């Protein structure tokens, strides 16, 4: 069924009895052209674009839990294309253009809201750095506006501009950035892929990867063996465990990143605001909750929850920047598991095993990359060659030292990003 205003009227007049499930729950077939391990945002969007752009529909997406139950449901839903380095810049620019059309593409309301992102700066040096970044964004074809203090004050009058620790000098405004409803992104891609014939198989854990003579042959799962011509590993957050089944050791450490949400409030924060000096960023969800977060806890973890020192640090930074949030009550906090790569940038590449493809290392930027990652991964799997905007996301860049994308300029080593 296609969703439209006409359907809402029709179903409303007929007791809403005609709505059907968004996707089927098929039994796994004995063989597929492509198996995607991981039914998160990236896996589902890869299946969708394989079907839509490349006409490959004999695909299974294998998910050990349920669709949208992993990191795509545990993030803070920021969408942006404000990267500077070649490699990242064109990739996220392409991804943002896909975001702008995705709801039409998969006929589902993902509540994508381009409310604008403002990165605050607090010194002359930081202003120069943001002016340079803004120019890079503009030359990539995206939008950026350098705001002075009064410009920021007009848009965000509730900030504490005179704070003694980091007085606000201005901000870099990225109008096309914003947020989206994370679950709806997963559901939209799942529905769009299912409509094109992709089998989405939930509660199906992959327990082994079959490789013969350096060629991938299929997978072993909790629901039996499934043969496949090509297998895509798309389990960011658990990449090391999945890759280990194929005998691969990845340049990845898993870290926990905490996020927090307040009780629902009336609209008060209209944009996404980032406060890099304090390690804090915030936006308001359409339900009214203030959604905010900070930096990693900075120790390897799969616990999906963090510790109190970082929670305290984030809340202190929030209170420094916008004292008004002290009146809100916190509803809950949680942690997502980040695939941290040594240079802070992701990996979309072939492996040494024929027919086995790797997509991992999304660090804390996986959500905004969902469409771009799927589009580029689909191209890689279908054509066996990298897609232009993602061509620099090579697995071997750490071994060779060539083409590292260290956006923060801190070094291509673990624990620095």
């Amino acid at each position: 069924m296609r969703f439209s205003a006409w359907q809402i009227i029709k179903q409303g007049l007929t007791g809403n009895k005609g709505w059907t499930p968004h996707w089927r729950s098929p039994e796994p077939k004995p063989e597929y052209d492509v198996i995607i391990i991981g039914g998160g945002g990236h896996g589902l969007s890869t299946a969708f674009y394989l079907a839509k752009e490349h006409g490959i529909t004999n695909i299974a997406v294998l998910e050990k839990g349920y669709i949208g139950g992993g990191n795509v449901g545990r993030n803070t839903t920021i969408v942006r294309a404000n990267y500077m380095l070649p490699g990242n810049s064109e990739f996220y620019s392409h991804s943002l253009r896909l975001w702008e059309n995705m709801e039409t593409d998969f006929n589902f309301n993902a509540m994508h809201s381009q409310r604008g992102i403002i990165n605050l700066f607090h010194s002359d040096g930081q202003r120069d750095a943001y002016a340079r970044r803004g120019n890079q964004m503009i030359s990539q074809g995206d939008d950026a506006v350098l705001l002075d203090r009064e410009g920021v004050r007009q848009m965000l009058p509730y900030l504490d501009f005179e704070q003694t620790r980091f007085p606000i000098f201005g901000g870099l405004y990225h109008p096309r950035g914003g947020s989206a409803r994370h679950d709806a992104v997963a559901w939209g891609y799942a529905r769009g892929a299912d409509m094109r014939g992709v089998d989405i198989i939930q509660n199906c854990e992959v327990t082994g990867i079959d490789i013969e003579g350096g060629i991938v042959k299929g997978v072993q799962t909790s629901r039996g063996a499934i043969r496949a011509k090509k297998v895509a590993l798309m389990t960011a957050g658990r990449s090391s465990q999945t890759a280990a089944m194929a005998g691969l050791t990845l340049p990845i450490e898993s870290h926990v990143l905490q996020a927090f949400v307040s009780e629902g409030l009336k609209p008060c924060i209209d944009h996404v605001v980032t406060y890099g000096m304090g390690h804090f960023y915030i936006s308001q969800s359409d339900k009214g909750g203030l959604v905010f977060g900070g930096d990693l806890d900075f120790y390897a973890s799969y616990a999906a929850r963090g510790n109190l020192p970082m929670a305290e640090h984030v809340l202190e930074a929030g209170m420094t920047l916008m004292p008004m949030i002290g009146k809100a009550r916190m509803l809950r906090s949680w942690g997502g598991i980040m695939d941290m790569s040594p240079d802070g940038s992701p990996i979309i590449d072939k492996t040494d095993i024929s027919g086995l493809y790797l997509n991992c290392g999304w660090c804390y930027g996986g959500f905004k990359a969902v469409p771009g990652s799927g589009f580029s991964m689909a191209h890689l799997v279908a054509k066996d060659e990298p897609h232009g905007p993602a061509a620099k996301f090579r697995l071997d860049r750490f071994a060779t030292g060539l083409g590292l994308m260290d956006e923060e300029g801190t070094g291509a080593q673990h624990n620095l990003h």
Partner: protein
Amino acid sequence: MGHASMLNRPEQDAGKDVWNAYLHERANIAGDVEDLWCHDMGCAAWIVVRRNTISHTIYEAKLANEVRDAD
């Protein structure tokens, strides 16, 4: 600050693959691990902590130089 394998620094001429494995590749275990911590708000000591990355249980902590010299 990373896995305790960082204490076993390769020889300078060990070759590219060995150094890549040492610097970048990680077993990244979901379960019991030994990793390096720096007590940076306190005595600045480097310690090896044996702990669980799923439950956050800490079993044991030893001074890093004692662990290194014992090998």
